[in-house]
Each structure stands twice: as C-alpha cells, then as structure tokens.
C-alpha cells in the first residue's frame, strides 16, 4: 500500500485507536488536556503549545476531541458496514438464487428504500428513534443494507447459471454450500469495493446526523457535532471548523481513493 491514501488511512486508524483508548481509560495525552476537560479561561483559544489545534467553545482541547471523534467515526462506519454487509449479502444471495416471491419482495422493498434520496431516510429514522449512539447505528443500519443486497442479488442471479454452480448442484451439493462455497467467493471483489465506498459514505453520514444533533451527544465528541459548534464561532475561531473539516475530508478522500484503486486492481465494473 505504498500510496498516500494508504498512509492517510493508516494515520486515521491509529488516531482512532488512540482516541478510543483515551476515552475508555479516561487518560489524557501527556502534556494535553482530556477530551472533555473544560477550561473556561481559554474559550476558543488559538493553537498553542498546550493545545496544538486550539480550543473549542468550552475551552476543551480540539486535538483530543478530534481523536475521540475519529474513533466514533471509524467505529460507527466499521460496525454498520459489518452488520449491513452480512445481512444485505445474505438477503441478496437468497433472493438471487431462489428467485420467485422472495426476489420480487426484495426488489419491491429496496425500490422503496431507494426512493428516499441520500441520507434522508437515515435522518428520518434517527429523528424518530431519538439521539444517541445506539439509535444512530440503528438508523444507519436500517438504510445501508440496500446497496449490498441489490449488488449481491444481481450477481447471484447470473452466477447461478455458471457451469461450476450447475455442476455442484447436480453433484447434490446443499444450498448453503453452493451459496457460500461456489457463489460468494466470486462476489468478494465487488463487495469489497462497495464496502470501501460504503465506509466513506458512513463517515459522512455519521457526521451529518451528529451535525443535525441526532448522533453522539455531549460531552462526547463527534466530527459532526464539532463542525456544528464550530460554524457558530466561524468568525472568531475559524481554526475550530478548519481543523475538523480538513480531518474529515482527508479521511473520506483517502478511503474513496483506496476504493478507486481497489476497483481498478480487482477489475470490478461499477454501475454508478
């Protein structure tokens, strides 16, 4: 992975791990304040040696909060991707392989989900479920499985006709064996590419919901809620928004570029 996107991603993975460690242990980086340590004498202070990225509207260290935000962003993205990848792929495999009413039902349901543009449906789910980390994950899970199900279904539909699958069938292989051993491995590449783009999308989605006040709640940090607070003090403390914005952008850009590289390397055709 000798490409800048790999290094940026590695950087943020380590940052997220550090952020997770700090928030679980309640410790602080040596020489810095804890992520939720309020210092009312230094509201919106500019970057200095005690806070490399400055301080927020409650005098908290932006760098420490950025690390905590990275751990939230990446863990939400990874957890939601794992759950929806599993669930969506399973549904798509069954629908594509069996066809019939199951397939028609899946298509109808996913058509309805796709009728809601962008993250509107996730916003709607999060709005009625109420704020909080668990509800945020739930809202994102409820809306993110659709892409994987559609992708798997259409692939399984055509792979079912392949000779090696029909040979396995005539040898009396069980359905789970056919699905998992003969069809799924051929789906690994497109699913991997899709999941990479999915992670970038989820980092943005988590931040969007938190920006609207629907995600992580105070005093915990999220890039979305930090951006929302930062916009309020844009004139007096532009460093706040800039620090969070550039972090988010670098992570999303790195993941997307990695997705492009994976797609080219694995020769996956993607219908946008």
């Amino acid at each position: 992975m000798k490409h800048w996107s790999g290094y940026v991603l590695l950087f943020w993975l380590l940052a997220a791990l550090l952020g997770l460690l700090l928030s679980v242990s309640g410790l602080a980086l040596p020489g810095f304040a804890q992520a939720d340590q309020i210092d009312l004498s230094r509201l919106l202070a500019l970057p200095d040696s005690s806070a490399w990225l400055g301080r927020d509207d409650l005098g908290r260290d932006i760098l420490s909060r950025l690390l905590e935000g990275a751990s939230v962003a990446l863990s939400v993205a990874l957890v939601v991707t794992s759950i929806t990848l599993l669930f969506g792929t399973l549904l798509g495999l069954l629908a594509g392989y069996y066809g019939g009413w199951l397939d028609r039902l899946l298509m109808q349901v996913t058509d309805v989900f796709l009728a809601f543009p962008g993250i509107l449906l996730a916003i709607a789910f999060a709005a009625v479920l109420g704020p909080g980390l668990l509800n945020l994950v739930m809202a994102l899970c409820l809306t993110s499985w659709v892409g994987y199900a559609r992708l798997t279904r259409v692939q399984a539909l055509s792979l079912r006709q392949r000779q090696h699958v029909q040979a396995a069938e005539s040898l009396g292989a069980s359905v789970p064996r056919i699905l998992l051993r003969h069809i799924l491995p051929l789906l690994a590449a497109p699913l991997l590419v899709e999941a990479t783009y999915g992670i970038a999308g989820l980092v943005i989605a988590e931040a969007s919901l938190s920006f609207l006040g629907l995600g992580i709640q105070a005093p915990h940090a999220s890039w979305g809620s930090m951006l929302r607070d930062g916009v309020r003090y844009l004139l007096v403390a532009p460093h706040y928004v800039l620090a969070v914005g550039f972090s988010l952008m670098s992570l999303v850009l790195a993941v997307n570029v990695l997705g492009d590289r994976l797609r080219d390397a694995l020769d996956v055709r993607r219908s946008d």
Partner: protein
Amino acid sequence: MLKRLLGVLPVVFGVLLLTFLLVHLVPGDPVEVMLGESATQADRAGLRAALGLDQPLPVQFGHYLLHLAQGDFGRSIHSGADIAGLLAERLPATLRLALLALAIAVLIGLPLGILAALHARRWPDQLATIASLTLSAMPHFWLGPLLMLLFALWLGWLPVSGMEGRWAIVLPALTLGFGLAAILTRMTRASLLEVLHEDYVRTARAKGLPERQVILGHALRAALLPVVTVLGLQLGSLLAGAVITETIFSWDGIGRLLVESIEKRDYPVTQACVLVIALSYVLVNLLTDLVYARLDPRIRFAS
C-alpha cells in the same frame, strides 16, 4: 411509457407506507414523547384521538391516505399550523435553491468534463480529476462553512446567511452545486471518452468534418444521454442535501423546516417533509426516464 408510469405506483405506495410507519417507530408512546411529562391525562387522550392513534394500524393508514388525497397533511403539534400551508410556504425557496445549484453544476461540470475527456491523461484532465475527487470528499456541512468563511467573512463579498437581498442565495447554491458539479464532471468525462471511440465518430472525422463539429455535433449528443439520467437522479438528492445546507445558511426552505420539526419533536411535520422530498424524488426520476426515452432514438423507436 404506460408501463413505466404503472411501475411507479408500488414505489409510491411503499413510500407512503414507510413514512406512515415512521411515527410508529418512536420508542414507547409517541404521545408521551410529543407532549412531555407535564401533560395531563386529558391532553394525552386528546392528542391520541386527534392523531387517530387509538385505532388499529390499517385503519390509521387508510385515514392517512384519505387525508393526503385531499391535500391534508394534518396539523403541527407545536404551533397548530396547517402543514400543507407550511409546505407551500417553504417549498418555493428550496426549489429556487435546487434549480440554481443545478445550473451551477451544469455550467461547471459539463465544460470541465468535456475538457478532461478531450485532454485525457494530460494536465487538464488530471486537474479536473483532482478537483472532482476533492469536492466529492467535501460534504455540505464542511464545504458550506468553508465558502462562508472565504466569501462572506474574509472577503466580505456575499451575505453570511439568511434570505435578505438577491445575493443571499449564492453561497447555499454554490455549496449544493459544487458537489454535483464534481459528479457531473466525472460522468461527462467517462461518457465522452467512451463515445469518442465509436465508429460514427471515426466516420465523421474521415469525411473531413472539422474537429469542433465532430465533438459538438456527433460525439457530445450521444455522450450526454447518460449524463441526463445522472442529473435527474441528482436533482432529487439536491433536495436531501438542502436539509443540511439550508440549516447552515438559515435558508427557510423545506429542509430547514424538517430540521426544525425534528428539534421540536413535531412528528407530523417531520413525516410530511420526508414524504414530500421522497415523492419529489420519485417524480423527478420518472420525468428523467421519460425525457431520456424521448432523447434516445434507440428507445424511442423500439417502443
């Protein structure tokens, strides 16, 4: 064409059902959540009856559809205002914003995409690719503040937020438009590159047409067809993007109405906004398909 029209009906029905069920997802008693703990028993019973929550679900759904068919979206719990009126008041602002954003995206994305395709793998192409990659990693809630900082606070050229004066729309429209311009650039580039290898482009060149006419008259016409589809799909997501952009710039459109209703736990308004945005999206997609069918002779003559 009739088949396409009929095909939309199950989706519309599903959208109606899902938005209807949204309010029933509220953990616990929605009435409890809406009124808070200080409400009296009578208040709760009153609201429950007003919302029809004391009836079985299918009956409630029937009522919901019946009211919607009459243009009745119910009333806001918070202010008691007629929701249809609220929507009618807010929707034009969002449409103005979305249309200007679309225009910006087309004016930037198309020329940039064409330029990139004509100079494939040389510096104009690489520059356009970097620009569109970077822009697509900038969600509205980051691009918006950045533009605000640059053009309103530092340069002082444009108003920071609000809806006063004719220039107030520029920053939110740029915020919405830039992201779409990025997608459009990539689509136009890819589509034009593909077409440039077609036989009829070679024929046009072979019969001695000037390059300008080959590109504009022959290649571009065919290359723009898939781009139209993407534009249609994206017009709907502009409406979704408006939710955050309008919040940042205090633009009183339907997106901001949605966010306000969420903050006030005004579920009927939330439900109505989600429904209207989703149905507009379905409608725009349908229109795009129909326009596409008119534009593409292969589809036009096949049916």
